[in-house]
Structures are given as C-alpha cells and as structure tokens.
C-alpha cells in the first residue's frame, strides 16, 4: 500500500554555481508558493566567491508560518552535476531528483569545486552502494532507495526555446535552465502553473520577452516532468489566503524597523553579510512620511520630503565615527557591519559611550575569528559586543531572534540610544540576514518614538549659568543639546570631561562621571519592559529549560513543537536584552529547573557564560554548533531528546549542514 499523499508540506532545494541565476529560480519558486497562499522559509548558502562555487537555496513550503529549515529534502532540483553530488543523499526515499541526463557520465573527480574531504566521503558512499563514481551512479544509488528520477533534457529544451523565440545563441538564454528546473519541480508537485507565471512576472517585471521565454520553457519542463512522475507523493496546492503577507529577508526586516524608528542617516563599509541592509536602504532613500507603518490601507495623505542618507565610507572606523558625528546633530544615526568591521569600531564605540552619544550599531554576525567564513553563520560575537573597547563603557546590547524582533529591535534600538544616551549594539546574524520568509505583517502600532531628554534652544543659559552637557545635578541622564542649537554650546572630548565637556583628570569628577554613565544602565534595566527583555515559551513548571538567543529561536520553536507533541516537559527562555542583563527575570525562570540547556551557534556557549556571570546559575548542558551552518529544527529535535532522557553528555556539538 502506498503511503498517503503529503499536501503542502515540502522541503525543496535548488543549487548551482554562483552567478548562474540560482537566486532568481529560488525567488520565483518562493514567490509562486507565497502567491499560492503558502508560507515559505528559505535558507541561502553560498561561498565567499563571485562566480563558479556552489550555492544553494533550501526552501520549505507549508500552510502555517515556517521558522526554520530541516535537513531532509523532498525535491532536489538541479541542472548541473555538483549540486546533485552534494545533495542527493539528503533527498528522502520518497522524494525526487530533477536533473540533466546529459550529465550522467560526469565523474566525481571532474568537479574541482568539491572539497577533498567531501569527495572522499562521497566515494565511500558510492563504493558502499556497489556503484561507480559518475553522476549516473549517484542517481542509481538514489533510485535504489526509492527516489523518483526526473530527467529533464535541458539542452533540448533550450534549443526549442531558441527556435520559438528566434535566439541565435544558446549561451544567451543559458540562465533559463533555472526556470526549467523550477517548472519541472512544480510539474511533479502538481502546482498551479499560472501561479508560477505570476511569480515570473513579479521577478522579471518589465522584461516581457524574458518572462515569455522562461514561462514557455518552464511549461514544457512542467508537462514533461508531470508525465514522467504523475503520482508523486508530495503535492503543492494553492490555498486561499485571508490576510496579507510579507515576503522578505531578515536584512530587509531590520532596515524597515530602523526606518520606522526614524533613522535618517546610515554609514557602512562593504562587508558580508551586513551590506545587504545598507544597499536596500540606498535603493529606497526617498521616504514617505505621515503614514501608518506597514499597512497600506490605513495610510493618511502622504507628505514627501523625507529621506535616509546612506554613506559608503572608506573603512569601518570612518563608518562608526561619521555616524557618531551625525548623531551629534540630532539625527537618528546608525552603522551596520559584520565581525571584522566591528573590530575596527572599538575606539569609536568608546568615544560615543564617554560622550553619551545615541548611536546604533547593527552587527550582523558571521563565522569568525579574523576573516573566518565570511558567508557562513555564527553567533560568535556576543561577548565581544558586551565588552568591545578598552576601559569600561556602558552600552545596550539587544539580540533579535526572528524577523518581527529584527523590526522591533531595529526600532527600539534608537529609543534606547536616545533615552539612555549611549551606543546600542543590535545583534543580528547571517542566518537571519540571508533567510527569507513569508510573515503576517507584524502589528507595530504599539511602538512610539522616544527621543529621551532634550534641552530646547535658548533655555535661559548665560555665561554665568552655562548649559552643562554633562550636568551632574539631576540624575544620570543630562538633557541633550544638538549641534547648531542656539544658547547651548557644549564640548565633547574622548578624555574624561567635566560638566561642560572639557578635559579633566580630577579624581572626584572622574568618579562622578563614571558613576553617572553607569547609573544609566541601571535605569535602563529598570525601565525596559519585561516583554522586550526576554520571552518564555512552554509549560511554566518545566523541569528542563533551554536558554538561547538570536536566530536559533526559529529552529528551537519548530523542534519544541514536536517535543511538546511528544509530551516533553521542556521550556525555552529566549533572551533578547543582553545588556543590561535581566538578572531577576532570568533567575526566576531558571532557579527551579533541574536541567538547564544552553543552545547557541558558537564554540564557547557565550550566553551560558553570561548567565553564569550574572546569576550564578550554570547550564547543565550545552548544545553548540560552529560549523558555519545554522541549526536545523531536525538536528535540534534529535539532540534535545537524549538530554531529556538523561542520556547525553554535558556538551553536544551539532554538525549537520552542507
């Protein structure tokens, strides 16, 4: 008896050499699913390379919001050999492989971009299946397991397209193979082809001929694949969509939150993966105002004239210092960077801290140290962000775990920077930045802009009674003046300063200024609402509690849904405000737990060490990953089970991901 058909729960993967158009095919596939009412989550993996190295997109499509990827692939779509060699083993036994039969004789050894380690591993696999080392052998090994093979004669189809559209050279339309692979995938999945065409039109917009060629070819591949595998177990069907949805990346979500929060100045130096956000801002530098956030229907008559000025600087030192200079004029100002760039910003962060300048730094973490793996994921900069710079300088550190948090924290970072007059480091990471997903537009109507204490111009100051930028008389926060304002001249210096902002080395003043600056952190800890600091998921009396932060949230929640369905008594404390650390709140959630599991994408268990430092509570277990690939919900589920059953070591290292 054949297993039941699985509708609208699919894991799809497409790969190819960088620069060959794989991005567009994943985009069309995802947009078609989204247009068809499905939720999607896509993970993008690529090398630090412009052209030729392997890149891939793993995408899940479901009827409910998707928060993470899984290890298994139901449909693998390829038009070249490397993707097939790399990913065929991940295809489920009931899955399918779309491939080019003309490449069947390609040998593993013919592909120089496959690393030696992986090649040896694949050879062992092929030998164990008693087959040779060609692509046909790889396919045969898959077929043995029950995988459906979907040969698509890509070259033949390209020739037909060239004939139909009178294209003189096949090389001019070589990129169409991407859409043929998408078309063939939708063919076996039985998805509505008209919806795919809509997605093609969305992606290629004004270019009618390109849309027509791609659609014509995709339809051929669709029909061919459907005839080859008419009874595929996985199906995708359009479903009615009640509410509007956004389809975006984490970089875009962060940018939107920052703009909504009133950011009008951003600096950056090109770096992966942070640049995407700045480029998005540059493309959208003219802004509408007097509106209502994300909801188009509610928009009041718009005023034009607002803008975000994005400046590409000569280096990250200039990025952080220029953003700080701008912040002194009153604009909400930020810079966005990744590890190596952040390393260059240390001195500037200290300057902003001692001069009490509201400055936002969005830090897109990637695998370090040094250049590390520039295009791969890690949450390795938490301790660095907490301590960045010499001396002791207060700052606020916020870490986002999903797209809505990227938006909210992007917004709130500016409020905290203004209210507590200090740098705010907003931690995002590669997995969030480069993932794309459909979300229900978050309701941000509770958000309000708080500029903190400001002194108006001409506020009665005189030579006898001068404005004191660092007034010690009225609590830790001194009302701030803006450069250019009449009647409030002040001075800044990186030296320790007096109330006016002039250099001092007076021991008493030094103490007073240190205490003033740090008292603002206590105030922040008191005032920032609990629901911003952290969130607890799961049963209140759970004897096992996970502590995590950042983008592991999606995979954890998806894994926990399955563990809870299994009856596990396990909770999850997601910490968003790392500095000032929510000591009382974290203690409350962890004090009674028998097992405490730190889950983090780094080697050392950085949040776990912060928890221990701040609360004295130690994790009983750590689940860590540092191979550059984000945690899948599958591997988290597999790792948490043994811990719950008392059968795990203290330290579990996750290793999956291609």
């Amino acid at each position, binding site marked *: 008896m054949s297993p039941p058909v699985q509708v609208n729960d699919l894991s799809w993967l497409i790969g190819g050499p960088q620069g060959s158009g794989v991005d567009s095919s994943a985009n069309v596939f995802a947009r078609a699913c989204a247009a068809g009412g499905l939720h999607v989550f896509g993970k993008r993996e690529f090398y630090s390379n412009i052209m030729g190295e392997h890149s891939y997109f793993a995408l899940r499509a479901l009827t409910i919001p998707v928060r993470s990827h899984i290890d298994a692939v139901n449909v693998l779509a390829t038009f070249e050999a490397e993707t097939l060699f790399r990913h065929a083993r991940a295809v489920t036994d009931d899955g399918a492989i779309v491939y080019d039969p003309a490449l069947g004789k390609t040998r593993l050894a013919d592909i120089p971009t496959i690393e030696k380690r992986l090649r040896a591993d694949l050879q062992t696999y092929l030998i164990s299946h008693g087959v040779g080392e060609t692509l046909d052998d790889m396919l045969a090994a898959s077929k043995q397991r029950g995988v459906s093979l979907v040969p698509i004669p890509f070259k033949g189809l390209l020739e037909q397209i060239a004939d139909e559209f009178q294209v003189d050279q096949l090389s001019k339309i070589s990129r169409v193979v991407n859409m043929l692979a998408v078309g063939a995938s939708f063919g076996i999945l039985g998805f509505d082809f008209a919806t795919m065409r809509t997605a093609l039109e969305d992606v290629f917009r004004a270019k009618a001929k390109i849309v027509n060629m791609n659609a014509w070819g995709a339809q051929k591949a669709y029909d061919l694949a459907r005839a080859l595998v008419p009874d595929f177990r996985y199906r995708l069907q359009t479903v009615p969509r009640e509410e509007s949805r956004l389809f975006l990346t984490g970089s875009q979500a962060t940018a939107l939150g920052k703009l909504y929060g009133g950011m009008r100045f951003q600096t950056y130096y090109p770096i992966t993966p942070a640049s995407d956000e700045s480029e998005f801002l540059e493309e959208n530098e003219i*802004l509408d105002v007097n509106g*209502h956030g994300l909801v188009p229907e509610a928009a009041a008559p718009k005023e034009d004239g607002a803008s975000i000025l994005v400046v590409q600087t000569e280096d990250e030192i200039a990025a952080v210092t220029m953003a700080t200079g701008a912040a002194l004029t009153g604009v909400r100002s930020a810079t966005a960077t990744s590890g190596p760039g952040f390393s260059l910003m240390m001195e500037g962060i200290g300057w902003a801290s001692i001069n009490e300048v509201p400055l936002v730094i969005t830090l897109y973490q990637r695998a370090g140290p040094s250049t590390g793996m520039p295009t791969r994921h890690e949450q390795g900069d938490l301790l660095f962000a907490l301590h960045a710079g010499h001396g002791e300088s207060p700052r606020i550190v916020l870490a986002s775990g999903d797209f809505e948090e990227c938006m909210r924290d992007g917004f709130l970072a500016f409020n905290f920077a203004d209210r507590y007059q200090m740098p705010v480091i907003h931690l995002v990471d590669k997995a969030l930045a480069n993932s794309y997903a459909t979300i229900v537009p978050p309701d941000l109507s509770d958000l309000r802009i708080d500029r903190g204490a400001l002194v108006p111009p001409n506020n009665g100051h005189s030579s006898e009674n001068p404005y004191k930028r660092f007034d010690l008389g009225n609590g830790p926060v001194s009302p701030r003046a803006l450069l250019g304002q009449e009647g409030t001249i002040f001075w800044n210096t990186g030296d320790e300063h007096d109330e006016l902002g002039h250099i001092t080395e007076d021991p008493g003043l030094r103490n007073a200024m240190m205490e003033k600056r740090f008292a603002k952190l206590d105030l922040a800890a008191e005032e920032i609402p609990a629901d911003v600091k952290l969130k607890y998921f799961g049963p209140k009396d759970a004897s096992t509690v996970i502590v995590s932060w950042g983008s592991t949230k999606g995979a954890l929640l998806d894994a926990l849904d399955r563990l809870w369905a299994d009856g596990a008594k396990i909770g999850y404390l997601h910490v968003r405000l790392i500095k000032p650390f929510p000591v009382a709140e974290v203690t409350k959630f962890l004090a009674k737990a028998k097992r405490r599991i730190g889950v983090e994408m780094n080697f050392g268990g950085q949040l776990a060490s912060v928890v221990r430092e701040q609360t004295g509570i130690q994790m009983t277990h750590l689940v860590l990953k540092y191979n550059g690939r984000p945690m899948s919900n599958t591997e988290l589920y597999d790792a948490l089970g043994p811990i719950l059953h008392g059968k795990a070591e203290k330290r579990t290292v996750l290793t999956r991901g291609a």
Partner: protein
Amino acid sequence: MALEQILKPSDFATEVHNDWCPGCGDFGILRTIQMALAELRMEPHRVTIVSGIGCSAKTIHYVKTYGVHTLHGRALPYATGVKLGNPQLKVLCLSGDGDGLGIGGGHFVNAGRRNLDMLYVIHDNGVYGLTKGQAAPTLKLGVQTKSLAHPNINDAVNPIWLALAAGATWVGRGYSYDIKHLVSLLKQGIEHKGYAFLDVLQPCPTYNDINTKEWYGGEDRKDANNGRPLPRVYKLEDGGYDPVVRDPSDVEAKASQALEKALEWGDRIPIGVFYKNEHVPTFEERIAQRIPNYMDNPPALQVIAGPHGEPRTDLARLVQRMTFKGA
C-alpha cells in the same frame, strides 16, 4: 547672539586654562581662528569645530563654538558626519600632522574624493608633541629633532601634493607666526565652496629644534648688506601666482603649477593659496541630485515623530513588492 552685533575675537574665547607650551605655534592658529570667525561674523552656535588627538586637538576647548575633540586620526570622519547630518552648519576640522597624515591618512585621501563643504586645517610641526617628540609624517628624511634617537628614517609626505591628488578643491598653506596672512587664508578656506585644505606650518618649540621660528624666519642667514634675516617663508601672491581655476579646462595647468610650487622647500617655502577650483560639485550637491530637498530638510531637521511619539515613516511603498495581499 544677534548677527548685527559686531563680533570680536574675544567672543570666541573660553575660560579654559590653556596648557600649551610657551611659544607654541598652536597659539597663532587659535588666535587666527577666533579672528577669522569674528571677521566673518559667524554666530558661535552655527559653528562646530572638530579635532582629532594631540596638542592641536585641544584647540576646540579654547574656542567658544560647539567643539568636538575626537579620536586620534578620526577628526575628518566625525566632521563629515556632523556636516552631512546638518549641512546648514559651518564645520571646521583640525588635526596635527601625525593625526591627519599618519594615523588618519586614509581619511585624508577619502575626504578629497567627497569635496564636502568644509575647511580642514593641519597643524604641521613635524613631530608628535604630546607623546614627547617622535617623528611625524612631515618631518624630512635624515632630520634629527631633539628627542629622536636617530635621524628620521622615513621621508616626509607632501601634504599639498597629497591634498591635490586626493581631490581637495582649495589647497593652501599658512604660517602660524604670520597672523594677518593666516586669518586671510582661514577666511578664504571657510568661504570656499567645497573641501578646503589648509596646511599650517608651526614651530614646536619643545620638540622640533630644527624647523624653529628662527629657522622659518631665516635668522641663520642674514642679508650681507643690511644684516636683516632672509625669511624662508614667502607669499605666493607676492609673485603674482594665480591659483584659481576659472574654467574647467584650466585644471591641468593650475594643478601642475600648484604641484610644482609645492615642491619648493628649504631656502624658499611658499605660503598662500596653491589651488582653488569651484567647478567640482560639492558632496552636498551630489547628494541633492538623489535627494532633491537634502539641503532644506537634511537628516538632522527631519520630523520623525508626531506629538505623541507616533512614528511618521510610512513603509507602505517600501513593502509593496514584498507584499502578497489578502483575499
């Protein structure tokens, strides 16, 4: 302070104790800045002076305008941020030669590429004064100032050449003991439309015992006829030098002339304006090509919130292409 009041240099003075060494060239620069601002009738609050680190950087504490004393080598990017945040402000930027040409050399080059409307002044004394006299980037090869263990092993960079190569559209050099001339240069630099660079030669009486006031003044080489010293410093304009690019086609000739003059050193050291070209669009003008109302509604002056903190940014157009509308 109302504009109609006649401003005096003392209106730009603070009560902060000045701790420069007696005879420091910085005094001349400080005084000329105060004089230039007064003569240009600049309202103190409309002016922001940004400095880096070192003796030169302390200047801002002695001037009653907004003053931002920043990090070693970083005065230019801070100043750039101030000017871009609110281009309606008048921005002056001060560095030492180690500050601006050594640790901050990268910013020096990139500021030229932008041509932002501000004046950058380098206090040029050939030594790192505040750290006790190490060789700085404008000290010549083989020169041994008094705290050096050995003669300088590095050659000097030519700030005028570097500024021209980087794209500064006004390049001048002053001498801190020629007050009247320096005031005139500061005023011209401030009023120049675009990025102006002013190299100011200044003795460091404590650590540079080679390029002293007496050396610049030619006390060591007196006129045989009348016994008067023959100053090394001379004014370009006295020889009829014309630095102004009057037509874009003049650029090559005027830049070549400036480069040639800037090679002079030793017995004859030119001061004055080497080059001036207002045909290059300023950074502000380039931004206004993309953001038409940039000058009228710059980042710092935009209203981002309603009376109760309601965010005013409308994201609807931005998310249009990301939106799949509900049924």
